[in-house]
């Protein structure tokens, strides 16, 4: 039947949709950049467990991809981001953030270097407008290639083993934050050793026509290895454990925030290590130079919370019950067996080891249980196993 109730364009289906649709028992879809992506296939905890113990497959096709081509490609990215990318080598990946003129973070992402005249930026939010305006005065062409590349994240301790079994040559020697072209069961793919899970994992980029073959190949050894497709809810869990922050969840993108005091600088997000003030001029450098000398008034920190009830949306207090901040993301971590969260705290509590309190409202059979929980300020990166960095990777 025709949809007569709405003039909205229906959500797009990714090249993997035929498979994700079959796998999505719950029929629970999430809207990501105009695409349908499974929020939960059947059970979030199970999907999470597969990512931490075997491997999980995530459809990340809607991720925005921008091709930067031209003589000034590296110069352009160097002007855009806070890190020095002038030394980037072919086949290298760099984690980058970019700021506006007030030194507030717009978005984060990764940049892939194909050669010195061709780079590609991957990010979560739309940035074509910002990139195009940044490109003024540079000999580059910025092109949105989001729809022409299908992408899967293949994350988990057995991910390398599965790829090895699929005869992906020399995959174990791919270093973290590097990528290369491979043959995967007859499909030409680009594989990078990157991901959002904080564990050993790969991201696989291919032509939309190859999508189904790539998907099916990954599940080829499932009799022994129980690989599961994982939804966005499971991804949210692993990314919190890994200490990765997300725009418009943990901070407002400076291009989208309406209230000026809602924007955040890299220092406030604990990303000061990404800001290189000795490099060439980049957007925000002038202000970041001044900000670096000033003490912070608030900071996003990791919290280790007493008890087992997740502190989602909690307000943070000091010992005198004075409000000092808010929790932006929280969960009970099954792997770590601890109650973890990200939260903003004020200047007196941003040191590792400080104590703050969270007021947790936990729903229990139609009644809220109000919990006053002590929290320890810790590093944001809760989960960081050895195998993530190991070269050659475990097969």
């Amino acid at each position, binding site marked *: 039947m025709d949809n007569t109730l709405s003039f909205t364009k229906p959500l797009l289906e990714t090249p993997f949709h035929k498979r994700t649709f079959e796998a999505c028992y719950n029929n629970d879809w999430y809207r990501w950049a105009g695409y349908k992506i499974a929020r939960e296939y059947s059970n979030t905890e199970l999907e999470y467990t597969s990512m931490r113990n075997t491997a999980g497959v995530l459809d990340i096709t809607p991720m925005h991809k921008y091709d930067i081509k031209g003589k000034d490609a590296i110069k352009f990215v160097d*002007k855009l981001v806070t890190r020095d990318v002038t030394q980037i080598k072919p086949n290298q990946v760099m984690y980058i953030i970019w700021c*506006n*003129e007030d030194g507030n973070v717009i978005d984060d992402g990764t940049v892939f270097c194909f050669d010195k005249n061709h780079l590609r930026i991957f990010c979560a939010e739309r940035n074509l407008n*910002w990139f195009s*305006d*940044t490109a003024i*005065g540079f000999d580059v062409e910025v092109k949105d290639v989001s729809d022409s590349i299908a992408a899967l994240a293949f994350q988990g301790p057995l991910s390398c083993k599965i790829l090895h079994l699929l005869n992906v040559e020399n995959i174990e020697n791919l270093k973290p934050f590097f990528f290369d072209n491979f043959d995967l069961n007859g499909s030409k793919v680009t594989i990078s050793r990157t991901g959002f899970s904080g564990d050993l994992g790969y991201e696989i980029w291919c032509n939309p026509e190859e999508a189904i073959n790539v998907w099916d190949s990954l599940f080829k050894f499932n009799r022994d290895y129980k690989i599961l497709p994982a939804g966005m809810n499971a991804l949210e869990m692993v990314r919190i454990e890994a200490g990765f922050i997300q725009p418009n969840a943990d901070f407002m993108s400076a291009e989208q925030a309406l209230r000026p005091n809602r924007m955040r600088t890299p220092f406030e997000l604990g990303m000061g290590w990404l800001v290189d003030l000795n490099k060439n*001029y980049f*957007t925000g450098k*002038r202000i970041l130079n001044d900000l670096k000398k000033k003490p912070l008034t608030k900071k996003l920190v990791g919290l280790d919370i007493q008890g087992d009830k997740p502190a989602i949306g909690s307000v943070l207090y000091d010992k005198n019950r004075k409000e000092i901040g808010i929790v932006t993301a929280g969960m009970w971590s099954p792997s770590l067996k601890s109650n973890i969260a990200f939260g903003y705290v004020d200047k007196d509590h941003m040191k590792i080891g400080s104590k703050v309190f969270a007021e947790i409202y936990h729903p229990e059979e139609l009644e809220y249980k109000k919990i006053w929980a002590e929290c320890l300020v810790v590093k944001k990166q809760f989960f960081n196993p050895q195998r993530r960095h190991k070269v050659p990777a475990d097969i």
Partner: protein
Amino acid sequence: MKKFDVIIIGGGHNGLVAACVLSKKGKKVLVIEKNEKLGGLANYAETLSYISKEVIDELNIKFEKNVSENFVSALSEDLNHTVLKINDSKNIEFLQTSASNSDQKNFINLINKYNLFARTLRSFMFKRPPRVKSGSKSDIWQLFSMGFKVRRLGKKNMRELLRVIGLNIADDLEDNIESNTLKGLMSNEAVIGTNLGARSPGSILNLLYNQATNNSLFRINKFNTNSFLNIIENICKKNNVEIQTNKTVEKINILNQNVNSVLLNTGEVIEASAIISNTDPKTTYLELVGAANFDTDFIRRTKNYRTKGTVAKVNIEFESEIKIKNLDSSYSSGKFVYAPDIKYIEHAFNDNKYNKLSLNPCLEFYINKNQLSANVYFIPYLTNSSHDKEKILSNVKLILEKFIEENQIISSIIETPNDIENKYNICGGHWSHGDMEIDQLLMMRPFYGSSQYSTPINGLYLCSAGTHPGGGITGINGINAAKQLLKDKVNG
């Protein structure tokens, strides 16, 4: 290698005034001008109706007023022309007109109303505008005093000012006047040199703004532009300002966000600790300094700064002395306006909106014996194509034929906004280096982050018409920029 304290890019009148102020304070100044002749766009100006007290005091100059009487003639197709005699802004009389007595009275009342408002605007026109978002006491005090001056108009007048300031000129005229010729005459002053039609909001503000900077609604010819330019050029020479003509600056070299030197088209590199750019903001930032040295937000604002020129200059030489049909030749020293009614202006403006030249353009011209010099609008600046100049000329000639007694044309020269851009390096060939609209005025001129004559680059200043108070031959931009530079030097 040569080294100067200050290099001024562009020998327009604002650049020369800035050179005067700086050299008087003992700075070693170099002025670089692209053309043979100094003065820039001021060379186009037929009139100079006001020289502010600020300029006279700062440069310590004396001026002779033009003694000749000032006339403005609004040409009408039925040859029933309207002629105004203007002694000063308060003293305007009708010498001949087809308008009714009540129309004449209302017209004078309207002018008086605009005069009152323009006087209020003028009180903060020649000062440095406050910065937005700075939080400094002086800026807040300045904003407060601006509000206070508006309030001092009294309740009734303040309300009227606030009512009309965002309004279009056609609405206010249609409320008060019936004569089409008078409506056209007033609209001409509100829209010439802008991207506004008579029915575009903000045209009254533009009229008041021009009136405030020129101290005259009809831009009459009180002083000689050339002698003004000569005087400031002489001051420069007396103060040992070095002036190099026929040279263009290709690049401003930046080192660690500080100005370092300029690169000329001759290959010379000249060092300086400060640079004042008298080219428009867009050219300065995007061409001379380069976008790579600025934040993306700033480049966005630069890109969005509106600089589309709309006026072409046409000079025609006739065989014998020009005579206007049905008009006393004693009025020919004045200005002639052909903008017969609001509808005509709106139609001319319509074409401009779509980047086409007006088939029936409006004209403002001056005659001097057998020479005629006209400002023709709307002739838009074109980015990807060029104008058919012959067509513009034939359109102009068709109009002139209606009013000029038979005469043979010997030669004619036309300069479109594109020509003006090339000749003077002004982006868009705009009269005022950018539209004078409410979002590009005062502390917002040229745009946020670049106000108060300074720029994000240390030691780089702007003094062109792209800064407050905008276009017109005021010299204020030059004085204020020079003062800002001196103030920053004192503060380190």
